[in-house]
Each structure stands twice: as C-alpha cells, then as structure tokens.
C-alpha cells in the first residue's frame, strides 16, 4: 500500500488535493474557525457579577477543575452515554440484522421506517416519551389501573427517563451504522456454520456476532459521541435532575451568559471525547490484532 502511494505521481496527488479542497475549506469555515473562537473565549475572565473581560487567563479553567461538580458531571455524561448507547445497540441490532437479511420487497420501505424517527423533531419525540412515561402517562395509568402500584412510579424527569429517551433517539443512527457495517457479513459463512453442525444460536455467537464486530464498533462510537453531545433529550426529559456536560454548557451559555465558562467546559468536553475515542480506537485495534 505505502509502496503504491510512493509511486503515485505528483499530478495525481495534486488532483486528489484539489478534489478535497472544497471540503477542507468548508470544514475550516464551519468548524475550525468557530473552534478557534471558542478556544480564545475560554481564556477570557468573568467578573463576580458575570461581566466578561478580555484576558489571557486560566481562571476559568482553574475554577472548572477545582469544582468537584465537574468530575461528577463528567462521570454522569460518560456513564449515561455508555448505557444509552449500549441500550440502543441491543435494541437496534436485531432490527438491523432483519433489515439486512430480509428479501421482502418492502425492504427499502422498512428501512426508511426504521430511521423515520430521525425525520421527526427531537422535541416531538420527547413529548411522546412524556406521554408514555409521565406520572399520568400510559405506563403509570396501566400500573395503577391494574392495581400493581398505588402511587405513580417516577419513570421520567430522572436518569432513567433520559437514558431511555436518548437510546431511542440514537437507534436510527445505530441502525444505519450497523447496516453499513453488515456489508461484510457473508451469509455463506453463516450457512457454512450451519452445515458444520452449529444450531442457529451458535451460528450467531460464533459467526454472525464476530463478523459484525466492526459494525458494532462503528455504531457504538458514532452513537456514543452523539450521546455525549445530546442536549435536547436530557434537557426535556431530565426534569432538572440530570446534570450532564452538554446541559451544563447550555446553562452557562444560554442561561447565565457566562461564555468563558461555557467555552472552557466545551473544550474540556471536546478533549475528553477525543481521548475516549482514541482510547476506544486503540482498544479495538488491539482486540482485532
């Protein structure tokens, strides 16, 4: 591979560069430039009354790292994202496998249906969850109506509700990522396993699952990053009880007008996610080797 790259003529490389140039420019404009602004903002100072003063100060970072709540929020974010992503994976995997395999002529339609929630505003879906999980929602009505419980069970406005809502919102992305990765799943391998005497569940464990590991790795990564940055679902389903990095950044920026704190926390989150992704990549690469 590297040998071929070395042989690649200069002109070919220039053509390649020219082809990705628009994307690079766009990325620079919509990502890099604001990121630099964010980086600069984090070093400004905030006075005791909330007034922001241009400065080159580490004060915001210092108070960020001195606040034990930062660690707590970090843990909340990572753990909740992990659980929600895992839940989305467990729920999406059978669906994606079915969509991958089905010979039905409605396959495209079914795939569109599976990812259709993406077409609906997150806010609308959240209110759907509230109608289902609320104190007067469908589930509590059923529980109390059947006499199983006397008081409403708190299913929402807490970590449970946010995890569930987040997992649901991640599912379409997980399904798409899995479907993309399932391209490497060779039906003949599963059939070979069957002819060699493996019953269906053994085929799944020994062949299907290992062969779809790259898809799982990809889907998990994508959804975890999405979960870490999710804001609307935790905000609306959290009931003010769920404290995550994304909601903290929002509160700093939009409620408190404390931009340096928001910027510092955003940078901290970015670095955290990058580190987690790098660790994840290293881990999966080692596992593959």
């Amino acid at each position, binding site marked *: 591979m590297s040998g071929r790259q070395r042989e690649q003529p200069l002109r070919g490389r220039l053509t390649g560069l020219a082809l990705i140039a628009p994307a690079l420019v766009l990325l620079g404009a919509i990502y890099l430039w604001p990121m630099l602004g964010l980086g600069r903002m984090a070093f400004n100072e905030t006075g005791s009354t909330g007034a922001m003063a241009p400065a080159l100060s580490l004060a915001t970072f210092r108070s960020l790292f001195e606040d034990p709540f930062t660690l707590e929020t970090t843990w909340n974010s990572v753990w909740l994202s992990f659980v929600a992503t895992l839940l989305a994976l467990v729920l999406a995997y059978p669906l994606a496998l079915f969509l991958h395999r089905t010979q039905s002529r409605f396959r495209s339609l079914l795939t569109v249906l599976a990812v259709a929630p993406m077409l609906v505003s997150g806010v609308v879906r959240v209110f759907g969850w509230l109608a289902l999980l609320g104190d007067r929602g469908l589930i509590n009505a059923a529980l109390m109506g059947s006499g199983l419980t006397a008081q409403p069970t708190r299913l929402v406005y807490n970590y449970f509700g946010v995890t569930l809502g987040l997992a649901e919102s991640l599912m379409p992305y997980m399904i798409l990522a899995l479907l993309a990765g399932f391209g490497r799943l060779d039906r003949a391998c599963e059939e*070979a396993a069957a002819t060699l005497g493996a019953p269906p569940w053994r085929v799944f464990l020994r062949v299907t699952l290992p*062969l779809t590991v790259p898809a799982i790795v990809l889907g998990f990564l994508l959804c975890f990053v999405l979960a870490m940055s999710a804001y609307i679902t935790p905000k609306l389903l959290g009931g003010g009880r769920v404290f995550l990095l994304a909601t903290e950044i929002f509160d700093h920026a939009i409620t408190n007008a404390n931009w340096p704190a928001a910027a510092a926390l955003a940078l901290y989150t970015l670095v955290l996610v990058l580190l987690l992704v790098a660790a994840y990549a290293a881990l999966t690469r080692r596992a593959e080797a």
Partner: protein
Amino acid sequence: MEQPLAARNHQCALTRRMSHLTLNRLSKRYGETVAVADVSLSVARGESVALLGPSGCGKTTTLRMIAGLIQPSAGAIEVLGVDVTQVPAHRRNMGYVFQSYALFPHMSVAANVGFGLDERGVGRSERDRRVAAALSQVRLEGLSARKPRELSGGQQQRVALARALVIEPDVLLLDESLSNLDARLRDAMRLEIRDLQRSLGITTLFVTHDQTEALTLCDRIAVMHAGRVEQIADPVTIYERPASRFVAEFVGRSVVLPVERSEAGLVLGGRPVRTAHPVPESRALELFLRPQRIALAGPETEAGAHNRLGGVVRSHVFVGDRLEVLVDTQAGRVTVETSGAGAVAQPGDAVSLIWSPSDTLVFARAAP
C-alpha cells in the same frame, strides 16, 4: 466401482458412515417461478455425481436443498433410507464446500477446520488430532495458525475442503468449488479432489457449469436444464449419446446442420445421410456431429457405409492442441477438428467429410 482391496479397507476405516442419497421428485418454487422441478436422483455409496448445467438451471438450488439450506416446495430427500427433508441443516451431517469457500475470516485455519468438531462436542486433543490429519490430507500442514486472508485461492479451497471432510459427512456437496481458481490451479485441484474423493470413498455431489469438471471428476453426470434433469448417465454416454438436443449442445462441441426428411430417408446437402439412432417424429430436423469424429479426405474418396459430404476448405484455425478446419459444404459451414499432424488440406482445396452413422445424431430443430 472396482478398487484395490487395500484402498477399500482404508476407506472403510475413514468413513464409517458412508451413505446413499436419494432425491425423490424434489421441487422448489418461488411464487410463479419454478427453480427446480421433479428432480429424482439416486446416488450410490461412494459414488460421485455432477449436477451440470448453465447458470439458473436449478443445480445449486438442488444442492442447497440437500444441505438443508433451502426448504423444498415438494418432494423428499433421503439419506441412508431416512427422510431428512424436515431435518434442519445443522443436524444433517453434510459437508458443504461453498463457491466462495465461506471460510470464517476471523478464525485461524485450524479453528475453521475444527469448527464442526467443536459443534459435535469433540474433545480438545481429539479435535486437534483430527484437524491436523485433515490439514495434512489437503497438504496444508504448517499453515494452521494463518488467517484465511493470508492464504492463496487454492489454499483457501483446500481449507474449505478439509473443513467439510473433517466432520466425516454422509455426503460431500461441492458448489462450483473450482470456478474461482485460475485455469492451471483448477486442473491440479480437480485431480486432487478426485483422488481424495476416491480414496475416502465419500459420496459426493458436484455442482458445476464446467463440462470438463463434470466429465473428469464424476462417475455420473446429471445434466440439468430449466429446473429439470435432462439426462443422467456416465460421462461417456452423456458425451457420445446425448439424450436431448440440449445435452448435445451443452456438453462438448457440436456441428449442427439442417437435415431434411424424404421418402428414402434423411437428406443432407442434397445427399442421403444415415444414422444408427432413432429419428424424432418432428418435421424440422437437425443433425449433430462431434467435430473430432469427422474425417477429412480427398474429394473423390469412397465413403462406403459411412456418410460423406463434399466441400471446400475455407480456412484453418490453430488452437494449440488441435487444428480446426473450416469447410464450406452444400449443407453449410462445418468445423472439423484434426490433430494437425501430417498433410493438411489447404484453403481452396476440395475435400470430403466422412463420418460414421453411429456418430450421427438427429434431433428436432429448436423452436426459432
């Protein structure tokens, strides 16, 4: 099949569960489409049978039904006299070698070969011993730790074969197993598979669209066409006495010439022609000849009891192992195959084509 006694003892030791496979009016329909229609076939213990036909003729579907990968629409499959039609694939004990090999890419060669033994609960030491034996059978000793992607196509093919054989299957099923190899490797593997199959005495079904493969590998050939079996016979019969126009066309090269029926008999290019075989009732007829069964002779050669057709040499085509001579005749252009040795008629020469009535086959003309 006659085999030396020693070889037979050997094969009995290796394959305790040799079997006998019967297909009884096996059919498969997909909605309105008939993929396989009423295929009946009986395979003797240790016999190797080829399912030969063009793509889409239903041969792979038949094989997959035997393996249990597809449920038949009708008919039955029996192994050793036991109906296995409703038995799921994993309890059929069939060795299946896939066209793509379908090796498990995440497992080593040894793990691939040992897969079926694991599923049968074979203990570790026993498994390792049998895996090693199977790998040495296919001459892959020393590669057991490799991953499939690190092997050549031929090596992958051998792993697939070892994996299917190590479970001591009742029937070995090979699905176009040589089609992914290059021509030279294919010839070598063909012989290797044949030797292995013979020495193990394992009942084998080959699916192939390659007539050479079918003719060289198998005791019998079932030629399939549009979901049906057109003819089941040994290779020589299939080649020399094709039962249908389709078989004649599909297997081997043919010269096809229009032939007319007159009160006196058949007329080819204005001359009477004889056949030793029955002639169909149909009005429109065609005459089939094998190009290598036609002799080239001088223009005035007397044919005697043989058939003769005069013509002029148009051109030569040298194909390496043979020379094809194109001759224009009253009945049409005829390709004659000769060894190319000795004096050969030159373009423009007048020649006679001479062949035996027993090599003369007449079929109804295909509908236009």
